[in-house]
């Protein structure tokens, strides 16, 4: 992964999301995420957290302001460029994201297969290594409905961290996930940050990220009046 070092990795500048399209409060959102930063965003509503992640990906139309990723305004890009840029984002989402007719191992490498020309053996090797680090015995080959919820959550983490993404939008997998996932998840975040990736960790409550308190760059709360900075005591 080339390290992006020419300004904020992600920048929301007075971005007013369309309420009709997202359900997010139509107020200006402003924040900056630098390469290597890890930002916690506390959102009580899971739907709002997902929509905020969508806003960062340029999926939510704006009434005003702009959202820039790697210096590029989502609104200025054509479909091809949009998709290529989104290919550099790793996501763990609460929204359904496992197509039933695609086996899990294929769904894990799908994004990388689609956006890169890396040999499939390399991808599978990396995915298997990540799968083991997240506590799976290997790459699951069943269809998603045959996999336990915890394993599917681990597979989501594998998929998000695979391919060294520049930005990670992580809708908290720890809250509903197995306790032993915590260490590997935090280690993966640290490794990603060390190579210059930015992390936005969307949580529902404060307790989840306290273990990683020292590593957090900034904390925000997603409230009815937009993003509110929270002082870290």
């Amino acid at each position, binding site marked *: 992964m080339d390290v992006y070092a020419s300004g904020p990795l992600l920048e929301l500048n007075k971005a007013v999301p369309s309420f009709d399209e997202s359900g997010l409060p139509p107020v200006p959102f402003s924040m900056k995420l630098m390469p290597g930063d890890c930002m916690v965003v506390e959102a009580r509503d899971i739907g709002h957290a997902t929509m905020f992640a969508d806003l960062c990906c340029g*999926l939510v139309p704006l009434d005003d302001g702009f959202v820039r990723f790697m210096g590029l305004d989502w609104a200025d890009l054509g479909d*091809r460029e949009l998709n*290529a840029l989104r290919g550099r984002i790793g996501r763990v989402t609460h929204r359904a*994201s*496992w197509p039933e007719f695609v086996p899990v191992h294929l769904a894990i490498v*799908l994004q990388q297969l689609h956006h890169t020309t890396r040999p499939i053996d390399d991808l599978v090797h990396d995915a298997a290594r990540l799968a083991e680090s997240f506590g799976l015995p290997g790459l699951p080959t069943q269809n998603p409905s045959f996999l336990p919820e915890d394993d599917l959550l681990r597979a989501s983490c594998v998929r998000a961290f695979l391919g060294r993404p520049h930005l990670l939008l992580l809708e908290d997998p720890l809250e509903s996930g197995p306790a032993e996932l915590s260490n590997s998840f935090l280690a993966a975040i640290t490794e990603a940050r060390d190579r210059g990736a930015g992390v936005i960790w969307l949580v529902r409550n404060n307790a989840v990220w306290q273990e990683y308190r020292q590593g957090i760059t900034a904390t925000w709360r997603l409230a009815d009046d937009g993003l509110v900075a929270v002082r870290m005591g």
Partner: protein
Amino acid sequence: MSETDQQAPQPLPPPTDTTRDPVLAGQTGQGRLFAPVQWGLGKLAWIGRLTRRQARFLLIMLGASWGVIFESFRAHSWRRTVRYEFISTMNNIIRGGLVATMFAGVLTGLAAVSQVIYWLGLTGLATMTGSILINIVVREIAPILVGVLLLGRNGMLSTTELGLLSIGGEIRSMQAVGIDPFLLLVLPRTLAFTVAGFTLGILFSFASLVTGYVMSRMSGVINNPVWAFLDDVATAMSGTDYVIIPLKFITVGFVVGLGGCLTGLTATNEDSLRTLLPRGFSRGMLIVMVVSVLFSLDL
């Protein structure tokens, strides 16, 4: 309180600014004056909405058809995920539908030839079986039956799969990581249906022709060897048939695939399988019939 006090004129309320309140504005003389115009505009808007809603799918089909054709000629579109989807869908359709198509071809050949032998036998023209088979079975019946088989076996499957992905949110999740569902699902599936439509159509025609020959030979209507029969069939075909028949198979496959994918992809949260499947089936049938009729009209 005295009676005089009770009858004292009440102070008039301050004039209301009716221009800002659409309800009150409708009560003014000016509002009444324009009521017929507003009524007319309302009706016009209703007709527009109705037309747009009815024409929406047709317009989406036209746009997506162009999109599929345009994207299929761009090397950049053929990523390995798209190639994988194309090959796996094509294998599913052709392998899965092979037996059913051949069987349908045999049955059609039997039914058509029985009728042809009976009716032409009465007029002493039974040797024209090959020509009749080409004109009726291969040109008219085969594209419709192959279209129906494609629709029932795989078109509805695509509608269901893509519909469930749209309703469940998986399509949105794909978009969030830069995977365009049109490129990954619609393009390869539509082209796989196109290739499969041609392949199965030719196999169907072959099965019905061979069955027709066997039936004619068994009933003693013709005594020529199969090569002579096939030569008769080839002679019965005009120059345009060599273009129109394959084109019909290709077009039927294309529109069945595209229609199935788009019906699924345009599903909303208000949809379920109960609404999606009947819609997909009726649209698919309509599309197959329209294509067949359009080709028959011109030539």
